[in-house]
Structure formats: C-alpha cells, structure tokens
C-alpha cells in the first residue's frame, strides 16, 4: 500500500495517501449500482443488504475503531425502526423527517447509555451491552399498545420521497433510497476515521492504558463515538421500517445483534468496508441457503465464521488485501 522505506515520503504525502480514494473503492461504489441493471428482481433484497451494511458500519465504528464489543447493538437499530414507524403512523409519513426522528431517538438513548459504556471494559462491558439489548427488546415487547408487540407494528404508511418517488413493489425506490443514505453516511464515517478523532479512537483500541499518559480523556471519546454509532444504527433501523412499512420484534432482538457482529467479523473489523462486505455475503448466503433449507442456513455461516476467524485474522477483506499486496509485490 504505502512505501515504508526511505525518507522520501513527507509526512503530508503520507497522510494524504492514507485518506485518498483508491480505485477499488470507487469500483466498489460503482458496483453497488449493478443490481439496477443485472438483478432488477432482487432490488428489495439489495435494499435490505444496504440497510444491513449501514448497521454493520455503525458497529464497526465502535468495535473496529474504539475496541468496544457490543452484543446489544440491535437496541439502537430497533429504536430507530420503531421511532420511524410510530412517527409515520401518528405524525406523518414523510420519510426524510421520519429518518431524522429515528436518528435522534437512537442517538439520545445512545448518549444516555454511553456514560455507562465508557466506564467499563472487557467482559463487563460486553455483558452490559447484552443486558441493555435485552432490556430494550423487552420494553418493545411489553409496550404492545404502541409497538404492536409480537404482532409487529402495523399501519406504517410512507409518503413518496420528495413527494415524488413512490415506494414501488419492485424495490426500485427502496434500494435507491437506502443506497443514497448508506453512501452519504459512509462519507461521514470515512471522514471521521481519517480525522484527529479517528486517530484517537485507534489509540484507544491499540492501548487504552497509554491514552491518559498522553493527556487524552478516553471516556469523552468513547461517549462521543458510541453516540454517533447509535445514531447511525438508528438511521439503518429507520430505513428498514420505512422501506418495508412494518416493524417486528426481529428488528430489535438478540439475533440481530449477534448477526451484525458475525457479519463484521466475516468481512473484517476496523476497515470500514468490512461490514459492507460482510453484510453482502451474509445476506446473500441467507437468501440462497434459506431457499434450500430454511432451518439450517446458519450451518454454512457457522462453518464460514469458524474458518475465517481461524485462518483469516483480518476477515475476508484482510485476506483479499493481503492477496492483492502479494500480487502487486511480485510485479516488478
């Protein structure tokens, strides 16, 4: 990637090289347009993948960049989904304002809980995220009168975007909408990780014990990134509610929290694209395998997960980039 020998490289050139858009990156985003032409019958699936990718991206910001393992991140996804759904039912169906409401609700709860999150580490922290996840799930379950409980939230009606783009049966609008939101949020996340704050997060991940000795308030950093991550998860949940016009308890349950960790680990933690790649692989695999046998589709995912963590420590993306570096290195 970057020449590491000699002093020819100036610090500025080095930093700019780190944040420059690569050819593969551009190709990736162009490829996200392919479903419109190649798989027009799968645009609903493509939309779900984009939403899940956004959710995985939100987890990567805390897990991959600040080292906070969460097993309850679906709480924020679900909060966003219910907020957007309930808002459309009782206020109005305008989607963009609904998405803002989803973001704000998840962000506020994220900020409130970040004070607990920032105080703990290791197993304690994982158990706290798990517990918070159960708590929010149970609240959604028992608040039947407003969430619909186990029956799901019915009666969500979303207006056309900009009063023009109607949500169609083929998922054309849904995928366009999800993809645009994913891309814009990705731009924000990408800027964030290349900022001084992003560097501080990597510092926390690499060695939290050193941080106070360089004058850093790690807790303030953690509170901030947790809030941002919760907000993004809420946006993803809001998108799901709006594009499917329903919200079920499945949007907020433990399975969703666990799945997103699996996706991120499969794709590669701390690489921004890892979550996106993991979401694509996971969702496509689920779509294909559950067609064959709806009960056992976790079997291949389990095999893949074990194989990846055993043989590809950087996830599939890490493996690919090593492969690419190898090919480039062999060239004269």
């Amino acid at each position, binding site marked *: 990637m*970057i*020449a*590491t020998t*000699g*002093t020819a*490289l100036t*610090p*500025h050139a*080095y*930093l*700019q090289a780190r*944040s420059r858009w690569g050819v593969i990156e551009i190709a990736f985003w162009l490829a996200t347009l392919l479903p419109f032409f190649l798989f027009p019958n799968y645009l609903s699936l493509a939309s779900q993948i984009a939403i899940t990718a956004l959710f995985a991206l939100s987890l990567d910001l805390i897990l991959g960049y600040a080292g906070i393992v969460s097993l309850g991140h679906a709480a924020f996804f679900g909060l966003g989904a219910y907020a957007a759904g309930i808002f459309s039912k009782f206020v109005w169906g305008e989607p963009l304002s609904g998405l803002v409401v989803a973001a704000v609700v998840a962000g506020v709860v994220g900020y409130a809980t970040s004070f607990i999150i920032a105080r703990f580490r290791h197993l304690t922290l994982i158990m706290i995220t798990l517990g918070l996840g159960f708590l929010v799930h149970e609240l959604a379950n028992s608040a039947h009168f407003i969430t619909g409980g186990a029956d799901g939230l019915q009666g969500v009606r979303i207006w056309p975007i900009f009063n023009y783009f109607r949500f169609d049966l083929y998922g054309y609008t849904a995928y366009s909408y999800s993809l645009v939101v994913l891309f814009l949020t990705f731009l924000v996340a990408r*800027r*964030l990780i*290349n*900022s*001084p*704050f*992003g*560097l*501080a997060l*990597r*510092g926390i*991940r*690499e*060695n939290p*014990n*050193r*941080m*106070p*000795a*360089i*004058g*850093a*308030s790690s807790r*303030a*950093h953690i509170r*901030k990134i947790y809030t*941002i991550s919760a907000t993004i998860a809420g946006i993803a949940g809001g998108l799901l509610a709006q594009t499917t016009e329903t919200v079920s308890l499945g949007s907020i349950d433990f399975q969703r929290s666990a799945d997103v960790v699996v996706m991120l680990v499969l794709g590669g933690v701390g690489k921004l694209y890892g979550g996106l790649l993991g979401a694509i692989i996971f969702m496509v695999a689920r779509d294909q395998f559950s067609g064959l046998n709806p009960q056992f589709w976790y079997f291949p995912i389990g095999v893949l997960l074990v194989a990846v963590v055993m043989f590809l420590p950087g996830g599939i993306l890490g493996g690919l980039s090593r492969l690419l570096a190898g090919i480039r290195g062999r060239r004269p």
Partner: protein
Amino acid sequence: MTAALSTRGLNKRFGSLIVASDIAISLPRGVRYALIGPNGAGKTTLINLMTGMLKPDGGQIFLGDEDITRLEPQHRVQRGLVRTFQINTLFPDLSALESVTLAICERDGIAPTWWRGLSSYGAATDEAFEILKSLNLVNDCYRPTRELAYGQQRLLEIALGLAAKPSVLLLDEPAAGVPKDESQGLFTAIAGLSRDITILFIEHDMDVVFRFASRIIVMVGGRILLEGTPQEIAEDPRVREVYLGSRHG
C-alpha cells in the same frame, strides 16, 4: 522559586506491603534527577502516585504551586507532568508518526475534531516529524510500531512523552532492556533535552546515573533513604550497604 514538582507525606500500601512511606521530595526546575534503589523499592510506584495512575492513601502532590493530588492522570499531563513507562506502553498498530501526532492532537485539544481530515492539521504532523527526527526515528516513522526494533520503541516512549510538551518528565528506566552501548546514546539524547524540562529518571546502571544526573534520590523499601549530589551518594556508606549490597550481594 517554587519547585517544579514536589510531594508531601505521600503514603501507599498494597495490603500489608508498604510501598511508599512518608515520601517528601522536591524537584527544582531544570534539574536532572536520578531515582535509584533496588528492585521492588517502590520507584515505579512513586511515579504512578505522582502521575495519578495510583491513588495515594495519604499525602499531597504539587505541580508548581498547584495541588494536583486529586486530578485525573490526563489532566496532570495536560498541565505538563508527563511520564514514560518501564515496560513499553505503545500503540502497536499505529506508526510512530501517527502515535506522536496523536499525542500532539491531544495536547492541542484537536483530538475531538471528527469533521475535518487529519491532513488539515499539517502543523501537528510536522511537529511530530521534528520530534522523531530529534530522536533519530524518522527512517522508520511510517511503519507500525510493532515492527520497530526494541531500542526504537524505547525512543518512541520518550517521543510520546516529549509530544505532550512536558514541564516535568518522569522517565521510568528509559534504557530498560537496551544493550549498554545503545543506552549511552539514549541518555545522550535525554541529556540534550531542553533545560526548561525538569527530568527525573529511574536507572539501575550506576555509570549512567553518575554521568547524567545532577542530583540523586535513593529509595529503599518505600522510603527515601537520602538525597544528594552524585559525589555525596557515592561516598555514603548506607548507600553502599543497602543499595549496592543488595544488587551485588
């Protein structure tokens, strides 16, 4: 003139083990202090207490005139009291340049900024590069820290300390694990640091101590045995008995 750093009646025990007993020291500005004592004397513990990484059971710590006893470690660093670690405490996956840039960003209060690229803060990177240059680390400054040679990692410890612009720098065995011929170079670099920085270093090698320290504090069993010039320390029979005796006996 008030001392750069001083303590009053500092006490600390781990269970029944007394590791700091009524520690009163006072470091005048700009002086190079060595803190010596046998293994387990409580030298690292004293640094941990002064920097806030451990809470004392009693006593006070002053940075200049300010009582910092209850400040969080990072706030002490922000006020200029900075330490390095006996065992490398670095950022393995960050490059040396990134690590030092991070320390500068934290010092200047720009680390919370998430909406601007790091490349907009050229001054911070330039300064990091200069610090690394002064310690002869630029050749490998783009490589992840874990790939650096052990001696280079020891230098990076010091670079991180310098990046915080310390008024008082506490170096915990900066040359720990470094071969003797390299450790001279390392201490020459330390001796070349600005005289505005008050330095206290822990070191076991008496040649190095006598060469680079203007004053020496001897610690034994959690107590300050005595403090004096290198000559006074060298001639003191108690030091010979307790310190040298326990190391070579």
